[in-house]
């Protein structure tokens, strides 16, 4: 059963095509990660799912229905930037948003969520005195307090410290356990790798990745060597079969040229320097992202 079905959707703003012939299916009860560079079309896609923006062509079905020109009360939406009435008190603004969405009294739920996210003592304070992280948590509660069946989170971890990020992450995963579908837009590849059942990448308005992390990584194969040596990155210059070196200081990632045996590369390095550890692995999501959207990809597409 699909919660969201996007079929050949295109959206343009003037001469700029923000989303170009996009098709996507989001299964019910999954956490679906949207990744992509800034301006690639993520937020536009999310807004179209929310029916805030309408596609120029193609269709979007949510819960099996095409909802043109109407908002849906079964979707919770956390926008990229916080949208809270600053002069209202925390509890009031949550009861307002929750009541508006669900059409019922949500005072009890608001109380529970405030307690869960450790915001009870701020409940009667005005929003404008909250820190960025606390505002983010309040916005998250406003998104989920009405028990939506689909939750759309646009950059939910921005501005959060690790402790609060964990709190939100746990809350998101508990929503999934209860059957809620979660669409999550993020620039944090670690979050996408760890949390998402499916990952979708959009680049220049077009879908470039879609599937589970394992399936995506399988497309690239085990072409990466993670290695620690005595001489660091300087040990790899001039070694045959190394396409790219990602230097993380203590650790380097080597991308091996297609059809070259990684064992040969390792043996060349071992002949040059002492190797502390090495691992033959599939590329990380970060690396895949950079391969698609990084300067290297820009250059190759220009050619």
């Amino acid at each position, binding site marked *: 059963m699909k919660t969201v079905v996007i079929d050949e959707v295109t959206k343009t703003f003037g001469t700029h095509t923000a989303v170009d012939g996009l098709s996507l299916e989001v299964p019910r009860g999954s956490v679906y990660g949207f990744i992509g560079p800034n301006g690639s079309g993520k937020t536009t896609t999310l*807004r179209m799912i*929310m029916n*805030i*923006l309408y596609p120029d062509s193609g269709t979007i079905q949510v819960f099996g229905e095409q909802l043109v*020109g*109407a*908002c849906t*009360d079964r*979707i*919770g*939406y956390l*926008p*990229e*930037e*916080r*949208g*809270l*009435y*600053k*002069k*209202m008190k925390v509890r009031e603004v949550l009861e*307002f*948003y929750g*009541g*508006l*969405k669900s*059409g019922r009294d949500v005072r009890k739920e608001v109380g529970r969520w405030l307690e869960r996210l450790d915001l009870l003592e701020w409940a009667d304070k005005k929003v404008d005195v909250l820190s960025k992280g606390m505002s983010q948590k309040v*916005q998250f509660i*406003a998104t989920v307090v009405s028990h939506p069946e689909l939750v759309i989170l646009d950059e939910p971890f921005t501005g959060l410290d690790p402790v609060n990020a964990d709190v939100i992450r746990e809350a998101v995963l508990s929503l999934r356990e209860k059957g809620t579908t979660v669409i999550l837009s993020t620039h944090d590849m670690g979050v996408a790798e760890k949390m998402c059942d499916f990952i979708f990448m959009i680049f220049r308005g077009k879908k470039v990745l879609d599937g589970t992390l394992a399936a995506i990584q399988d497309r690239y194969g085990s072409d990466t060597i993670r290695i620690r040596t005595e001489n660091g990155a300087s040990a790899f210059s001039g070694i045959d079969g190394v396409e790219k070196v990602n230097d993380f200081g203590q650790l380097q990632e080597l991308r091996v040229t297609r059809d070259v045996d990684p064992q040969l590369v390792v043996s060349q390095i071992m002949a040059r320097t002492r190797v502390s550890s090495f691992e033959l692995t599939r590329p990380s999501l970060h690396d895949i992202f950079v391969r698609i959207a990084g300067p290297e990809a820009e250059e190759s597409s220009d050619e």
Partner: protein
Amino acid sequence: MSKVLKVAWREYKSTVRTKGFVIGLVVAPVLMSASGIVMALTKDRIDTTDKTIAVIDRSGMLVEALCSAAERRNAATVFDEKNGEKVRPAYTIETVAPSETNPDAQRLVLSNRVRDRQLHAFLEIGPGVLHPRTDRESARILYYGENAAIDDVRGWLGGPLNETLRRLRLSDAGIADEAVPDLFDYISPEPHGLVSIDAETGEISAAERSNELGTILPPIAMLMLMFVMIMMGAVPQLNSVMEEKSQRIAEVMLGSVKPFEFMMGKLIGGVSVSLTAAIFYVALGTWAVRHYDVAQYVPFDVLPWFFVYLISAVFMVGALQAALGSACNDASEAQSLAFPAMLPVMIPMFVMMPVIMAPQSTFATSLSLFPLFTPFLMLLRQSSAVGVPVWQPWVGLAGVLVTTLLFVWVGGRVFRVGLLMQGTPPKFGNILRWAVRG
């Protein structure tokens, strides 16, 4: 409660629960009363420094009369009869012989004496003042002073000068001095309303005497009340919507309500704020006019029209403001649109006096039937003593309702697009395109 009402209730609460609203509600009438009290208290606060006026009388006929008139005036008005306190300046006339050789030099000398505060001003009476129609140039009376145009002394001098000249002319014509007061006795027509039949007794009731204040004040009060209520309920929509857009609140709201519902909620909230304040002021005003026994001047029959116009006007102007606010990205853009957005509210204030003076004129009628101005100018005309033909308020209201619907519809289209259009400047072409395309 529907979503529209939920949004409206939040808007209403967020306004009326602020200290600014409560203080403004109470402070506004207090300030207005205080300004009236201050004006009343200061109206007699005038400069009581004695004033010497030099007079060059080239006719040779008036300076003595001026001296006598000044003495009479000083005796009668300078000191308060009851407590002997000096309440006005004494005027002293200093006779200066005309210079036949160099009149300009004489004027300069006198001007310098005025600058040195030895004189308040000086007067130069032409030789031909007795028969000015013979030679206008020689009949001029010139008053020289630092603040001559608005000087009280100049105004006073005109009285005894012309009174003396008339006496002299009548004397030339052979009319005795004794007859002069009777000849120039001036009887002013007393202002009265129209005679009508008393509804209770069926008899002809005498017309009531009217006065300027009672005629002009009620329409102005009605107009000002309408203006203030629109300023409270409709005009803030521009900044409110701009803030909701720039703070991304609009994006969250549009996840829960349709753009039109959002705008309608805001407009209903604005109407509720205006009605709350209007009811408070009308109740307070009703109590005040009854307490001070001036209720007969207040057109209570116009109050239902006031509230109907008020509701329509807040919707109409509020929709315009909300649409423009949705096109703005920040406070500076909102500021640049604030003046044109205020024009429908400001123009009726500019033409207020001509409409009050002639409520039945073509100018007043046609402007009051223009829907944007009807809530102000038709109300003003209805509140005047003259009134308006029965059909006009209904035609005006029909125009207002149609225009309100149009504004809300068009405003909703602009609102929907503008609210999510970040970074696009609020150019007239853009707004028009959003209104047409939706």
